[in-house]
Each structure stands twice: as C-alpha cells, then as structure tokens.
C-alpha cells in the first residue's frame, strides 16, 4: 500500500493556480524529493500534505486513509522546517517531547523517546540548552530530533539544509541519508538544490509552475530528462544546449552546428538512438543537449561503448576545480562547458581536440523544448 498518495491535487489562491493536478504516489520507506525553482509550488504541495493549507480540490491519502480534510495533528506526520522552528522558550528536551506531551504520552515513555532520539542524533549533551544557545547545525539536529521522537508515518522536510554553511550542509546531507537507510522512514523532502535531490532521493519530482514535469529515480531524471527544463535544472554545471539542424545522412541522421568564424561541425546521430518522429524534423532546427561530462579529451576513454565523435575547438576559459577542469569553448552560437580530467594541460586560447559521447546526447525540439530522442 502506498504510504503517501496525492491524487489530482489543485490549489488556487484567488485566480492564481499554484498547483495544477498534481498526482504522486510513494511506497513506505521511500525518499521522495520535490525539487524545482522558487515559486514552482513545491512548498505549497508540502504544506498541503502537512495540512497547513487546504487544497482546492483533489485528495491526499496517508497509509490508505483519506486525510485531505484532517487537521495537521491528526495526519500522523512530522515536519522539519527550513528555519527549524524550535520553540524558543523551551529547552531541547522540552522541544523534542512537546509533540508527545500534546499526544498525552506518559512521562516515562516521553523520557525514553527523548533519550533514544538524542542518542541517535548525538545531542544528549545539549538536552538542557535553549535553542538560542545552539549553533545552526545543532539546531538542525534538534529539529530532526523533534520529528523523529514521534515516529510518524511520514516525515516532511522543508529545505532543511538551506540555512547551513556549505560544509555542514554536505555533512548533514550524508547524515540524513544514513538516518533514512537505518530507520527506513517515508520522507518527503523539498529542496531547490539539485545536488541534494540527486544524492538523497529514491524518487525525484521535478516541479515547475505547479506541474510535476518528471517523476522518476535520480538516474532517470538525470540521464533521461523529459524536456529542456528538467535537463537544465538537474546537474551542475548544467547541460549545454546547442542549436543545430537535423539533416539526412545516407538514411541516418546528422546534426549540423554552425559556429560563427569557424568551420561547420557535423555530428552523426547514433543509429541505435533514432526515434520515430525524427524524420518529420529533417532540416529543422533542434537543440542538442550535451552534459559537460559527455565531452572528454581525445585520448581519454569514453564511458559508453561508442567511439565518440571528435571535434576541435579553441578554449576560451579554463576553470580548474581541483577534482577536474571545466573548459568553456565556443560551439555553435554559444559557449559550452566541458569537463575534462585534472591533468589536462590546455591553456586559454589553445585549440583542443575533444571527443563527444553522442550515445548519451539528448535531442530536444527547438520550439516546444520537449525531448525528441
């Protein structure tokens, strides 16, 4: 049975439609991430699940029960807020046990729950402190502890890491993942950070303008995006979009890219990836999507079997990140980013031969931005 099922949920504020027919279903123990730019409706959806905002139409089921019109308290959920929302006048211990107290759990059980959670999150030494005396990371732990103490059916995390500094964020991300693996809880997690989404999720829902554009595993969303928005949103640096025209190549297809001031570039489209409706688009503009890692130095091995197509371009900017080097090179009408190994000795202005892994390239319609192949 689905732990959480959202069925055709709509939300309107006056004439503004914030959620347009959203449907999601996740199983018990799954980690669902709602990701998207600000204003896409992900927080509204989260509040709808929590019961903090009524939906305009549609239904929400938790563990098979229709909770659409139940109060937040009666839904058996817990939430970790972006600002942590720790009760400022209470100690950490009181913060964690407040929910249990409200549910009339006996004192001994409450104490046991606090100890268990404090132990789990390593905050036992902080139990008698007030939130104001805690650091950001500690507050974050207490906020999670408050949610964990009640052992609800579904956990909601609303951008829980966005107030932490970069290093702590990575640490806490790992901890959340560990916790999830250990406890097997059902989690809905809102973020605008695609790295968090990729690393944590079992299932990612990419949202935009109140719609779910794509719902799938991180691998699916990353490697098989449904449109240019999803493709561009997931991944950092983001996918390169190159204007090209689709041409016939002795029964197969090829992409012609015109770079001002340079030779034309022709990239053959791999035979095994030909889609049915490509024939209708012959000699029409299309968008070629290439991730930075789809480029590699000429002598490097490619991850997919295909040989890859060679192209040569002059390097505009070299950005070493330590682990690898990002190159900016003009290709078509724009600059693209390529990720090469840290040993690449190229300097700006030089020409470099790069292999393009066309086996992983993605083709989009230039008008609708939908995926073609």
């Amino acid at each position, binding site marked *: 049975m689905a732990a959480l099922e959202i069925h055709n949920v709509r939300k309107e504020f006056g004439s503004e439609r914030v959620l347009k027919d959203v449907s999601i279903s996740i199983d018990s123990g799954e980690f669902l991430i709602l990701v998207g730019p600000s204003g896409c409706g992900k927080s509204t959806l989260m509040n709808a699940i*929590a019961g903090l905002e009524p939906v305009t139409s549609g239904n929400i089921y938790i563990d098979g029960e229709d909770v659409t019109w139940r109060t937040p308290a009666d839904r058996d959920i817990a939430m970790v*807020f972006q600002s942590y*929302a720790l*009760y400022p006048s209470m100690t950490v211990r009181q913060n964690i046990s*407040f929910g249990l107290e409200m549910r009339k759990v006996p004192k001994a059980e409450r104490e046991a729950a606090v100890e268990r959670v404090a132990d789990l999150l390593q905050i036992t030494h902080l139990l008698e402190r007030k939130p104001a005396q805690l650091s950001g990371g500690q507050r974050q732990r207490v906020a999670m502890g*408050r949610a964990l103490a009640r052992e609800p059916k579904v956990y909601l995390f609303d951008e829980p890491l966005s107030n932490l500094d970069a290093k702590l964020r990575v640490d806490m991300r790992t901890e959340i993942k560990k916790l999830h693996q250990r406890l097997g809880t059902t989690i809905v997690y809102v973020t605008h950070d695609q790295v968090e989404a990729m690393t944590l999720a079992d299932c990612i829902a990419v949202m935009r303008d109140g719609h779910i554009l794509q719902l799938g595993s991180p691998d699916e969303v990353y490697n098989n995006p449904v449109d240019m928005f999803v493709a561009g949103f997931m991944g950092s640096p983001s996918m390169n979009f190159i204007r090209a025209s689709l041409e016939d190549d002795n029964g197969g297809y090829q992409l012609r890219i015109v770079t001002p001031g340079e030779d034309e570039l022709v990239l053959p489209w791999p035979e095994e990836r030909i889609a049915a409706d490509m024939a209708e688009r012959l000699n029409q503009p299309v968008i070629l999507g290439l991730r930075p890692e789809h480029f590699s130095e000429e002598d490097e091995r490619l991850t997919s079997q295909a040989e890859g197509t060679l192209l040569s371009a002059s390097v505009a900017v070299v950005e070493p990140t330590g682990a690898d080097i990002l190159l900016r090179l003009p290709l078509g009408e724009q600059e693209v980013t390529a990720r090469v190994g840290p040993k690449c000795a190229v300097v700006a202005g030089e020409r470099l031969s790069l292999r393009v892994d066309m086996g992983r390239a993605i083709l989009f319609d230039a008008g609708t931005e939908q995926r073609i192949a």
Partner: protein
Amino acid sequence: MANVIRRQTPAARLGRGLLYGVLILAALFYILPLVVMLMTSVKPLSEISAGSLLSFPQNPTFAPWTKAWGEACTGMRCDGVGGYFWNSFAIVIPAVLISTTIGALNGYALTKWRFKGSELVFALMLFGCFIPFQVVLLPMAQTLGWLGISSSRAGLILVHVVFGIAFTTLFFRNFYVGIPNELVSAAKLDGAGFFRIFWRILLPVSAPIIVVSVIWQFTQIWNDFLFGVAFSAHNTQPVTVALNNLVNTSTGVREYNVDMAAAMIAALPTLVVYVLAGKYFVRGLTAGSVKG
C-alpha cells in the same frame, strides 16, 4: 555606538561642549516644574506666600502631604485623596490586565490564525486608536445604563478596557507579526491547539511587549480624567478626579503646598512604573526591528 571614530580637533570639542550645554539646559528646563512642585509641597504655607517660587524650603515639613492624603477637602467631603488613590488602583489593575490579555489574544489571532477579512478587522481596530474620547461619552453613558453598571467601578473598567483594546491589539499584533509562522505550524503538527500554542509557545516570548502594553495602559488609565469624571460616582472616583476637586474646592486660603502634594501623590504611581520598567518599555517597542 561607543566605537565611533571622531576627530578630536579643538573645534570639534567646542562643538561637542556646546551640544552638551544645550542638552543639559533643556533637561533642566524640562524638570523644573517637577522640582518646583516637589519643593512647594514640603514648604509651610507662610514660606510660600513670602518667598519666591524657586527658593529652597527653609523649614521642610511633610504636613501638606499627610493633609493631602487624609484630611484635605475634595468637594463636600474632607478625607483627602488617599481613598481615591486606592480607587484608582482598583480600576487600573483589572482594566490593565483585561485589556492586555484581550490585546494579546487579538494580536495572536490576527497574525497566526489569519482568516478572510482579518486585515480589515485589524484596520478597524486600529481606527479605534484615533477615536476622540468626547465622541463616545454619551453613547457610552447609555450603554453603561443599559448594562446596569453606570457610576460603578465595573463600568469604568469596561470603558477603559474597550478603549485600551485598540492599542494593546496594535502592540501585540505588531510584535507577533515578527514571530515566524513556522513556530505555529510546528506546534500545530505537534498537536497543540489555539490556546495551547498561545500559552506554551507565544506567551513565553512575549515579555517585552507585555511590559510595553502594561506600562502604556497603566499610564493611560491612571491619568484618565474625562471618563473618570463622567462615569463615576462619589465613592468610585479615581484620584485624578479627586485631585481636581481638591484644587477647585475654595474654602479660605488656597493651600498650594497641599495641592502640590496631592498632585505628586496622584502622579507617583506612573512615575514609579516608568522608572522601574522604562528600560523594558524602550526595549519592547524596538524589539523585532533589529534581528538578533
């Protein structure tokens, strides 16, 4: 701002000296009436008629104070302002507590439990801050009559509560707007209801604004004269009305020292409240304007 860098040139020092001079003069001028009142209240009557207003008392006496408290005539009776002083407390304390409580609940509901039209309700309540007292005298007298509490302490308390709610609501509403809504959401998810959230989450952090509301209401209601004179009977008059009667009762020689002593007695509670809690008043009014 202790660490502001300033140039210590002679001209700058002179300018600063002048600035302080002006400020000190202004402060002296401002406190002068209080000093004169205090001095006059401990002078015997003979010294007042002979000496100047600003001369120091030669033979200080507290007789005017005891007379003002227990013997001076206020209208027909001659038992001082002492009884009315306690009358004022009996009116002020319940009125302050009730109006602050209601204001806190209003502010909480208007910010954390928004409903359709809550902004309009707040705007209308705000309007209450600007209604002149005189406008409502007659309708209020009618209302008190209908309720059967005219000329009673309860009636006067009701009037002050009704007028105070506009201000206390404004105070608490503006304070609670600065408290994150997520706190309330978290408490809702934890299973707490309207009053529980107020009592356990909001109220414990409201100390600064409670101080503001109490001082404001205490001062307003204690100093009120118009409602006191309009809606009270002889035995329920607040001290401000008694003071007026005392000063206006003209039998024989005008006893300025007793008048001044009575005025000091009437003003003392608000002075004490402000001296004790003024620090928190300023702190509470600026709370939330700076994050931290």
